[in-house]
């Protein structure tokens, strides 16, 4: 059964230096509050896993939490580049960043394999691209029935997965709706998990399109209202498109980024509105 804790306790008890950590949320319900809490707690040497490292990982990478990034698309969606990610890859600032690069289909199937208790997943992918030359977690496998060659990718089983959801009840059952991305797979693939939620309620009214995570499949639940900002939480608030544009200038320079860490992460200010 998931225990309901504070965000600081949830991150503090679950995320350790050197862990492999996945924060998931595909454009919707990105766990930004948890990301800032990891920076605040000064975690180091993390292997960060995420299909779409966008602002939340630009922040963690810039703050020096990461040693390695496992990903398939790293950008500021609708705006452009992630400057902290680029600075780490191109200049090793604030620390060198090892990368393990896949496609979305490959990453999704790695999570599926992880959630399924299988050591690998199979897909029609990567053929003819330059990715297998640089990513040693892409191999070939032969169909035992047809002889066809397909791609195999190893399961992802993060030490900790963190996602954001709309609601949980007091027993720790989690309810998510709208775009659900790869969140269920990320939680089920992980050894430990934290779900931050907009609110904890007495009863979860059914919602069309809902995905439920039973309490016993989750380690901790923490209330973090507005915890997906600047991304959005369907039914609660919209995407803050201006923030994504603003991040382009905050993240562009090291000093403006460091000021953001100082003022917003450690200054205790609430980011955004």
């Amino acid at each position: 059964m998931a225990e309901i804790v504070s965000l600081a306790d949830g991150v503090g008890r679950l995320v350790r230096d050197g862990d492999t950590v996945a924060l998931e949320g595909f454009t919707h319900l990105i766990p930004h509050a948890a990301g800032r809490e990891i920076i605040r707690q000064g975690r180091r040497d993390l292997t960060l896993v995420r299909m779409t490292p966008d602002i939340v990982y630009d922040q963690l990478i810039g703050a020096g939490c990461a040693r390695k990034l496992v990903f398939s698309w790293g950008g500021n969606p609708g705006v452009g580049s992630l400057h902290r990610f680029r600075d780490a890859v191109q200049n090793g600032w604030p620390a060198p960043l090892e990368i393990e690069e896949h496609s979305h289909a490959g990453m999704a199937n790695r999570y599926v394999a992880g959630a399924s208790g299988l050591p690998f997943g199979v897909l029609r992918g990567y053929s003819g691209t330059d990715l297998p030359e640089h990513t040693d977690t892409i191999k070939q496998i032969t169909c035992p029935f047809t002889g066809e060659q397909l791609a195999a990718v190893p399961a992802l089983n993060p030490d900790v997965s963190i996602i954001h959801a709309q609601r949980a009840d007091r027993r720790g059952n989690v309810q998510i709706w709208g775009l659900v991305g790869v969140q269920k797979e990320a939680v089920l693939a992980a050894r430990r998990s934290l779900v931050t939620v907009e609110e904890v309620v007495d009863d979860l009214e059914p919602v069309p399109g809902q995905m439920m995570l039973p309490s016993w499949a989750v380690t901790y639940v923490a209330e973090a209202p507005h915890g997906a900002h600047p991304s959005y939480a369907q039914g609660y608030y919209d995407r803050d498109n201006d923030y994504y544009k603003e991040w382009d200038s905050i993240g562009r320079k090291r000093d403006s980024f460091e000021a953001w860490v100082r003022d917003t992460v450690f200054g205790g200010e609430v980011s955004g509105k």
Partner: protein
Amino acid sequence: MTTPQQQPRAEWTPDHTSDEMMSIAAARALADGTRCFVGIGLPSTAANVARRTHAPDLVLIYESGTLGSKPDVLPSSIGDGILAETADAVIGVPEVFNYWLQPGRIDVGFLGAAQLDRFGNINTTVIGDDYADPAVRLPGAGGAPEIAASCREVFVVVRQSRRSFVEQVDFVTSVGHGRGRGDRERLGLRGAGPTLVITDLGIFRPDPDTRELVLSQLHPGVDVEQVREATGWELTVADDLSTTDAPTAAELSTLRTLKEASS
């Protein structure tokens, strides 16, 4: 995919910019009823113009997990709430790739590119020869490698320059026609690959024999020399080179209304 600033570098008529011509030409390429896997940015703009003009039954599929989205404004990301709220079905990301893309259910994959080469191969990973120490780190693959592999055909929409239109991409993120005819079959790629490349200057199609991209259409006001200047390989021009129809007033107003509403 990076989103360079819009630069109306060739306003040959007072009526429309080259970027607008590109988006409208791309929109026209989508037949009504087509199931289109839509990348964000230029492809999304074009697909949404098409749905509002000649292709009301265009089926828009976004990798964030929406089948049949009918947004009334341009989504600012592939995961905008408007895409889920207006979709025929909302599904998880693994399902998008495994159940819908991989088996070849999608007619057209609509992609952008940072670099595109003579054979339609796409690079969105790194600029420079050394992957480990790149000159420019780009966002990476996203869904593109498998979109390019599995859709029945691929349309690419890209602003053309010697920087983006190169002899050979620095990194093959998504395979077009490899190094020529037969390569896709050899690699086991089941879709036809890029059959159309739409730029701000004109339209390219692969030569049926060599699979090299050949200039087959010029946008109004553009001449072959301009295209040659903006092409990083020795340009081949189709015998039956034609000229794109200028945007209609309806197309332009649809595009501008969409753009305004989203800015």
